């Protein structure tokens, strides 16, 4: 018989008790460690975007962009592919019904979500004869006037709760209904304010409760070599007086096919001084790339590098790029990469000649970048200033809305002052993007800010920088020669062509006359 020494028995019992107590904790720690190592437990939630059109409709892109505000991944699939998916393939389903699918089809998709025990949201197009046109939106505790929203009829179900309501002035219908984890939106995202409304609702749908509070960002647009330095100084004073930080989207060179119209910022020392003055007044320089072509990433990257070099020449450092989303994405494919972690997303004009984004808040760009969509847009005159203010007011329905407002520096001072007066009435906290972490890199320079307002500027290749600065000046000279010589050639050739045509006519007339004489006089 095996005997233990007496003193060891109580120690062994104590060890066994300790082990039994520590085992679950250790197991938990182990599983957490596995998750931290990138195991399946730590992946970002996956949102499955379903659609029922032959090609993904525009709403799919909109919802995808709205979702880029959240730490989720997205995947798009046709609704017919749903049967091929298994439980665990998605953590959320958002269904875009753009063709007015039957209730049964919607119910089938919803039942899959119920079976997988995941939240489900559907945006319904609705049959044309059952559409309700509303112009007043009730959401939360506020009412918002909106452009007409065509809403489908919803079946709220026995436990359905109205989240947003739409009114045509006489009657009211639910626009968004929630029944547990099942959400129904009665209109597509392109309808009036539906995209903004969806942006807010997505917080509840995804369970991502961002801190509430509206912020704003002012962008002074159209600042370039031909801008009036005195005008820019007055604008800076105006904004400083209103205690509003701002960004200045600078286009350091105007490139035109007509060399005489070309100009670079360093040609105008007063303008360079004005830019520095704006920076001291609370302005942050961003590089204006709104005119660059996304279809030509290499060319755009080259021009950006030259622009940064030109800005650097006058002591300016851009902390972000002011450009379309398409350009920002295409730059990643340029062989000489131009990298901006932060983008102020320039928005193109809509069909009604207004310019604002469907995305009312910041977007996450990769690991370390932020996109600031131009959510309110810019006004080109006094009349549109009111429109900007009302749009900004409506943005209040999004809990963490970002109002990006463009002020066109080419407008008269009075117009800009009036616009600013209107938008400054809104209760937003104006952002200074130098306090957002950023990184800019184009091969010869690296700029970075940790978000504390300081900047690290590292010139990686000074020769390249000087070369780029000269390149712009040289290209003006060489292109002038090419331009004028080619037009001279056109002129000379055209003169010769006309002269030769004249010769032909003369010779033919002479021949005809001779033939006539021969015929008549033998």
């Amino acid at each position: 018989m095996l005997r233990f020494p007496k003193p060891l028995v109580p120690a062994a019992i104590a060890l066994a008790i300790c082990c039994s107590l520590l085992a679950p904790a250790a197991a938990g720690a182990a599983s957490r460690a596995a998750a931290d190592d990138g195991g399946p437990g730590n992946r970002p939630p996956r949102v499955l975007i379903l659609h029922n059109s032959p090609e993904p409709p525009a709403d799919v892109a909109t919802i995808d962009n709205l979702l880029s505000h959240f730490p989720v991944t997205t995947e798009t699939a046709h609704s017919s592919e749903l049967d091929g998916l298994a439980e665990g393939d998605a953590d959320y389903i958002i269904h875009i019904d753009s063709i007015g699918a039957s209730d049964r089809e919607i119910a089938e998709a919803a039942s899959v979500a119920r079976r997988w025990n995941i939240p489900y949201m559907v945006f319904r197009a609705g049959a044309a004869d059952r559409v309700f046109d509303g112009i007043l939106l009730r959401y939360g505790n506020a009412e918002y006037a909106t452009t007409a929203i065509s809403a489908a009829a919803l079946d709220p179900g026995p436990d359905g709760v109205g989240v947003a309501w739409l009114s045509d002035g006489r009657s009211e219908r639910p626009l968004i209904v929630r029944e547990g984890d099942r959400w129904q939106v009665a209109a597509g995202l392109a309808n009036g304010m539906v995209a903004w409304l969806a942006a807010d609702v997505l917080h509840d749908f995804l369970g991502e409760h961002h801190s509430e509070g509206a912020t704003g960002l002012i962008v002074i647009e159209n600042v370039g070599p031909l801008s009036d330095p005195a005008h820019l100084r007055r604008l800076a004073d105006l904004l400083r007086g209103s205690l509003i930080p701002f960004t200045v989207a600078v286009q350091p060179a105007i490139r035109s096919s007509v060399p005489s119209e070309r100009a670079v910022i360093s040609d105008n020392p007063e303008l360079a001084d004005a830019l520095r003055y704006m920076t001291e007044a609370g302005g942050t320089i961003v590089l204006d790339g709104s005119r660059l072509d996304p279809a030509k990433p290499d060319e755009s990257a080259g021009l950006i590098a030259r622009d940064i070099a030109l800005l650097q020449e006058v002591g300016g450092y851009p902390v972000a790029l002011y450009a379309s989303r398409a350009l920002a994405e295409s730059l990643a494919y340029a062989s000489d990469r131009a990298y901006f972690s932060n983008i102020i997303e320039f928005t193109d004009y809509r069909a009604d000649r207004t310019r604002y984004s469907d995305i009312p808040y910041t977007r996450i760009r990769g690991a370390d970048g932020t996109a600031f969509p131009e959510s309110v847009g810019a006004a080109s005159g006094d009349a549109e200033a009111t429109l900007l203010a009302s749009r900004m007011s409506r943005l209040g329905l999004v809990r963490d809305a970002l109002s990006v407002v463009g002020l066109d520096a080419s407008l008269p001072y009075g117009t800009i002052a009036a616009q600013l007066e209107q938008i400054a009435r809104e209760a937003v906290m104006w952002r200074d993007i130098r306090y957002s972490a950023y990184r800019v890199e184009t091969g010869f320079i690296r700029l970075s800010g940790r978000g504390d307002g300081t900047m690290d500027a590292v010139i990686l290749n000074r020769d390249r920088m000087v070369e780029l600065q000269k390149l712009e000046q040289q290209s003006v000279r060489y292109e002038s020669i090419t331009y004028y010589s080619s037009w001279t050639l056109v002129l000379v050739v055209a003169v010769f062509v006309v002269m030769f045509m004249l010769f032909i006519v003369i010779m033919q007339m002479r021949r005809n006359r001779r033939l006539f004489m021969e015929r008549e006089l033998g």
Partner: protein
Amino acid sequence: MLLYHMFLMLGGYLYAERMEKLKAQPRRQRPDDEWPTVSVLIPAHNEDIVIRYTLDAMLRLDYPRDKIEIIVIDDNSHDATGEIVDEYCARDSRVRCLHLKPPHAAKGKSNALNQGLRIAKGEFIVVYDADNTPNSAAVKYLVEAALEDPTIGAVTGKFRVINAKKNLLTRFINIETISFQWMAQAGRWYWFGISTIPGTNFLIRKSLLEEMGGWDVKALTEDTEMSIRLYEKGYKIRFFPLAITWEQEPETWKVWFKQRTRWVRGNQYVIVKNLPRILRRKQGRIVFDLVYFFFTYFVFLGGVVLSHLMMLLNLLGIVNITLPGPFLLIWLLAYILFIVEIMVALAIEKTELTTRNFFTLSLMYVTYSQLWLYLIFRSTWLQLRAAIIREEWKWDKTQRFQPPAAQK
């Protein structure tokens, strides 16, 4: 090049105007005994299809009988050329026959001409290809043009295409020859007092030929080579378009390629052989002309290839030209200029400015003209290969076609 050709065409037009005035003036009737003696050399190698028509035309030449001899050099023909020539020799005292047999035969046109030169008695030598049917006044015009100025070493006449209406290729060639003569020949003569001897319908002083040692037997384009040597001696080569001959042009693409390859190779030989030497001697006009040839066969070719490549890459979206300027307009104007320039040349020829020729010309730019690129590349390659492996050049005789009986 664009500007230069415009300038040449302007010269061509002005020269045509001058010729019109000259034609309208009453000609001085020179007595028969005042005409110098002329030897017409006709090298012939297997030319039985065409030689009869050629000799008939020669016998119709309006020139004093006792002042002209027509020497047919039968260069070892294996067909009936020899018999036909003998028949004409027996029939007319003006015709003389020279039958070449190996080892002196079949060494190319230059060799045949040199053999003919050996027995020629005329003060002036006139050369015609075996497929030519000159107008009756052609030789008189050539001689008159030479007699006007002792510094004129050679006179070149105009050649026209006898089978122009045969098919699309001959239509192309017809337009090409007309424009070449009025642009390059007449234009250069008008502005710079130079032109290039073509292979046929030209006159040269016998004394000069003897002084220069005859034709260069190594040259594939003996005419261009001879032109350079005449320039070097300080003589002018006059283009005189009133002296007209009609010649047969290739009717098939295969024959055309063969003939043109020989021309290009020959001209490349002349450029490479003469340019370095002439550049050293600083003879302005010749240098200018040779540099022009050099540009045509080498530099301009590179430019055209680059331009085509850029256009293709641009269409495929691979390359984008960001240089400012009206480049599309230039291209369009260049095309219009091409059409209009050649139309001026066609209008000078009076009967050639037709709707059909206009459409042929419009097509020519994108078809026939582009084949020159291939030709030059091919010829350059053959030339290089010949230099590397020390290949001996062979004279490629241009194949003849049955002349239409009713023509001319």
